[in-house]
């Protein structure tokens, strides 16, 4: 599905797995530098030097919204940004249904956390801080036409 929605995309060949994005994300949302609290997750296989990035795709008809029994995962009608609020009780049903691994778990607070595209700031901090230029914030359509994205982008 192609829409005009802006999303954070990753160019995996430029990602070194430094997790600066995840740390910055945790700082922006929770005030602590802890990559486990990053809404973007960088999994790394050190042996094979393989990095794998997971973050929310802000899906249309998102399965997390179906799954949230509290009703605290909501989609903004204007921007299409999906957010989770503090009513979350940590039932993990959203984690169970998200095909992109975009729902992360805050184990200390026992709540689900997810990317909100830093809607209260000027733009996603992960994109700002990535020293390798591996993250880009673009409209979905661009991903098809720009040669910039010629390398595989990642969900």
């Amino acid at each position, binding site marked *: 599905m192609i829409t005009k929605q802006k999303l954070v995309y990753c160019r995996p060949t430029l990602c070194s797995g430094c997790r600066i994005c995840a740390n910055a994300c945790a700082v922006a949302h929770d005030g602590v530098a802890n990559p486990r609290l990053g809404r973007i997750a960088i999994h790394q*296989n050190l042996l094979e030097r393989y990095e794998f990035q997971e973050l929310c795709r802000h899906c249309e008809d998102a399965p997390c919204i*179906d799954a949230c029994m*509290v009703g605290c995962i909501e989609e903004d009608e204007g921007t299409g940004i999906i957010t989770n609020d503090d009513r979350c009780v940590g039932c993990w049903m959203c984690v169970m249904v998200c*095909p992109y691994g975009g729902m992360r778990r805050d184990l200390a607070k026992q709540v689900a956390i997810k990317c909100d595209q830093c809607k209260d700031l000027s733009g996603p901090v992960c994109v700002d801080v990535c020293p*390798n230029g591996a993250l880009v914030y673009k409209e979905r359509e661009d991903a098809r036409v720009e040669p910039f994205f010629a390398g*595989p*982008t990642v969900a």
Partner: protein
Amino acid sequence: MGIGSGTRCEYAIVGNSAAAIGAIESIRKIDRDGGITVVSNERHHVYSRPLIAHYLAGEVQEERMAYRPADFYERYNVETRFGLNVTRIDADGQNLILDDGSTLHYHRLLISTGSKAMRPPLKGTDLEGVGIFQTYDDARQIVSRFATDTKAVVIGAGLIGLRAAYGLQERGAEVSVVELLPRVLSRVLDARGSHLVQSILEKGGIRVLTGRSVAEISGRNGEVRGLILDNGATLECRIVIIATGVVPNVDLVKDTIIKVNRGIPVNQFFQTNVSNIFAAGDVAETFDIPRAGGMVNANWPNAHEQGRYAGLCMAGKMVQYPGSLGMNAVSLYNIPIVSLGIFDPESEGINQVDVKIRANLEQNIYQKLVFRDNRLKGAIFIGDLGYCGAVKDLIQDQSLVGIIKDSILEEKYQLYAFLRKKRQEKVEGKDVEWPETYSSPQRYQKSFNEESWTERERDERPWH
């Protein structure tokens, strides 16, 4: 029953829970004006049914029980008839008959009457302090009976029973669970998983009595005082919750022209055998993806999703439902438990399966994947959820996963590469052609063992 005596609407919905809300939201995406009327015998603004366990625990207060904001019905222009029972469906005349004697004429009807709790034929179920755990009112009733040092017994160690037991304990009760079968959560986990969960419960201080049935609930002055088990042992208690399972609530359609199986069978557009009557949620029998057959998959995510699809079809946009999946997620003592699809093939008599297990019982970790014909059919994740969302997606798509069978639980890079490819297709579309020349500076050299990966993958990515 004259039609003139009642009101009429475009869309009538029976039940006011997950499936109903999903339907309202999607009908309004297509049809802004068609009158929607919701009838429910519960008086409450829509609340989250699973959350009653958290309410019982004292974790969630009254003002947070609402599943949708207070102005939901106004915003979606929905007429509500709460506190009323639908007693009969007149399918030929397209009327609902309510218990206040009024009728409601509809064009399209959604039956989302959900599940109903089974009540075993036991002596003493009418005593005060004995109840089921299905509605907000049930939960409030139990909370109102709470005194300090309350002793409580839950009959049935299914998901609802354990959630209730956990909630009671959080609120301060001393809880025992009595289960007829030899293990807990027998419809959610396999034997090994069950035993792990039982040990987690026992360590947490909940007494679990498996392989025991209740002979009688005893009381004094109309109030419950204890339980007598089949072996003659007695359990003293002031609260008894009966949670011996739920069945689809098909009372309304029994003896009508609407076909009933275990639930109400529906087609991929959620139509029953009467084409303007739809069913969704716990009451509907839909196509189960891993089992490739009809099945009632009663859980919240399915109910909302099914309501959403049913609403689209009711409003005339015939979107095909791909099928449902049995799934459960619950968290006990901060240990997450997820089960998906066919998690215990032996018990269903399904053979020729390939099972992968990763277990570390000291750390309360147990993970299991079930494959058949190189496709994922089911999974269990306890303690460590791993890539359970991706696994659920692979079960739902029934993708061929032969080459990553060993990589999923081990979380090897083959899994990453596989998921990356799959997600690219999903997000960018299958028809995207990636230009051959990609001339961005490669600042990080990555090594890769060419031998260990397939031709296909090697071609997809510029390895260096």
